[in-house]
């Protein structure tokens, strides 16, 4: 291993090396090498079934690769113990379901599992971190509520609080904003952005909304047919040709009037108001 290779291993908290993945012998991802930047928010984007969720799961040790490796701080993630991984990396999969009657606080406490053992199951640190996770997600008032009794946005915040209580440097999320209304989407993403800003948490998430991905993520990785189509800062890679290839959709790229980040406006059918030139395809 050359010196520069060693350096790149150490500087990337999470990366894949010629990783191949598949379900039931059907390959979803073939020989993919990808490195996640430390202390940044990275968004995985791509069409349905392109393999981005599969990739995220394998980065979190939830799927065993058919070949290749996932390296967590330079070590093969499947050779580490489950608890070791869980102390460094938290994953929030899509649509988790809590057991009936479980309260928010009980759920968040579960995030401390990898840090506890049989005798030490509720240290001062555990208690403080659970309190902090509840505060950071604005869930303190709901601590004693049952998860079933919460709205979609509150529920998602409760799960994020659990992941925060895990107190890891890396946080992986699979579509954290699905099924949420716009207000709650922004609320969740703001929360993650703040977390990244204040604690330098490395965040990797699958996002469906290109415009929100461009606004919050430092880096965007576009996946097409199980391979990386392009990656880089959203303002560098989000353009007409990229959307055309990755999503098979015509669009107009504009600039977000508030944030200056690229904004993708799809062509298609729809009402036309005023005298603007029609580009409805």
């Amino acid at each position, binding site marked *: 291993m050359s010196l520069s290779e060693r350096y790149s291993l150490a500087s990337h908290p999470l990366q894949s090396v010629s990783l191949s993945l598949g379900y039931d012998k059907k390959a979803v991802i073939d020989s993919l090498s990808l490195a996640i930047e430390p202390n940044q928010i990275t968004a995985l984007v791509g069409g349905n079934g392109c393999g981005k969720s599969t990739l995220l*799961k394998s980065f*979190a*040790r*939830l799927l065993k690769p058919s070949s290749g490796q996932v390296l967590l701080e330079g070590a093969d993630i499947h050779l580490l*113990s*489950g*608890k*070791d*991984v*869980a*102390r460094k*990396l*938290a*994953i*929030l*999969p899509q649509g*988790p*379901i*809590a*057991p*009936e*009657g*479980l*309260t928010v*606080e*009980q*759920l968040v406490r*579960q*995030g401390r*599992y*990898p840090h*506890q053992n*049989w*005798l*030490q*199951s*509720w*240290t*001062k640190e*555990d*208690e403080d971190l659970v309190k902090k996770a509840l505060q950071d997600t604005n869930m303190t008032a709901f*601590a*004693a509520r049952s998860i079933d009794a919460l709205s979609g946005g509150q529920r998602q915040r409760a799960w994020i609080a*659990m992941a925060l209580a*895990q107190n890891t440097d890396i946080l992986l999320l699979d579509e954290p904003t699905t099924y949420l209304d716009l207000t709650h989407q922004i609320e969740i993403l703001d929360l993650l952005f703040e977390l990244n800003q204040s604690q330098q948490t490395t965040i990797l998430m699958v996002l469906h909304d290109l415009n929100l991905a461009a606004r919050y993520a430092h880096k965007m990785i576009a996946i097409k047919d199980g391979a990386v189509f392009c990656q880089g800062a959203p303002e560098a890679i989000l353009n007409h040709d990229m959307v055309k290839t990755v999503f098979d959709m015509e669009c107009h790229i504009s600039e977000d009037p508030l944030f200056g980040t690229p904004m993708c406006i799809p062509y298609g059918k729809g009402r036309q108001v005023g005298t603007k030139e029609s580009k409805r395809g």
Partner: protein
Amino acid sequence: MDKLLRVRNRFMSFSVPWKSIFSMSMTLLVFLLVLMFSLSVGEEFIPFTQVILALSGHSDSKIQLVIEILRLPRVLMAAMVGAALASSGLVLQSMIRNPLASPDIIGITGGASAAAVCFLSFFASAFGLVWLPFFAIVGALLAALLIYGLAWNSGVTPMRLVLVGIGVSSAMGAVTTFVIAASPLATSITAYIWLTGSVYGASWADVKALLPWLCVSWPLAFYLARRVNTQELGDHIATGLGISVQRLRVVVLFLSVLMAAPAIAYAGAVGFVGLIAPHIARRLVIRSFAFLLPMSAFVGACLVMLADLCGRLLFQPLDVPAGVFVSAIGAPFFIYLLYRQRF
């Protein structure tokens, strides 16, 4: 959030909500009351004071005999059987993440029953009845292996486990019915009473045979408590928190057999306790396995003790098997709890 009892020192740290401590103490009190009551009533009523004297060995020899030889082993047996089946049901419900699981639904009881009935029909005359529990335990274990094997598809999912279990359960039921139908009448009656479940004529030998199993399975269940809690959040979350989900699933399945099989072996196929006791426990204590386990056990113990009490008293001089009354007592109480929680 602050009504917690916190224990923190160099060796250990944990927290317990006061509310749960309270309901646990109340249940323990009810358990002791039911126990005392079961000892004092029967063909002959013995006052509480006499029962306590007899238990400490200071009563006259006749009362001493009734309590020590006749009633105490039977009541203890009922309590242990109820506790074991309830714990087994709780363990299965937690693992499968489905409130409709219990040893009698997923085929563990069915396996034990089929083996026991086959034993009664074909081997009892050659081996002697003492071997019945052994056969029942082996039957339960084989059923669990069969369920796990059939449900395997590069890992086992909870839903598959339940569905295969229900299939295995009905197949075992068919075997049981066939063997009973094909047996001579006397064997059929013995088999039928065994299938209903009864602690009639339980002796100290039975108590001593069942106790060691509980002494193994309970500590194991407590040891696994935190893991069981976490895996209830789903496979992905649990794996993400560092649990080997598949390994835990095998261990927990066999833990449930380890709890249910010996109880079934010594008391017969007492049904319903495994399903309902954990549900009652969930209404009384916080949703954490380490609390639910003793709570379910107490509830299960009370249910079977009360069922046996009804069996002894209601149709005197007939001694009706306890299994008959478990549902008769458990179901209304459970419905009452559900009804009360509507508000």
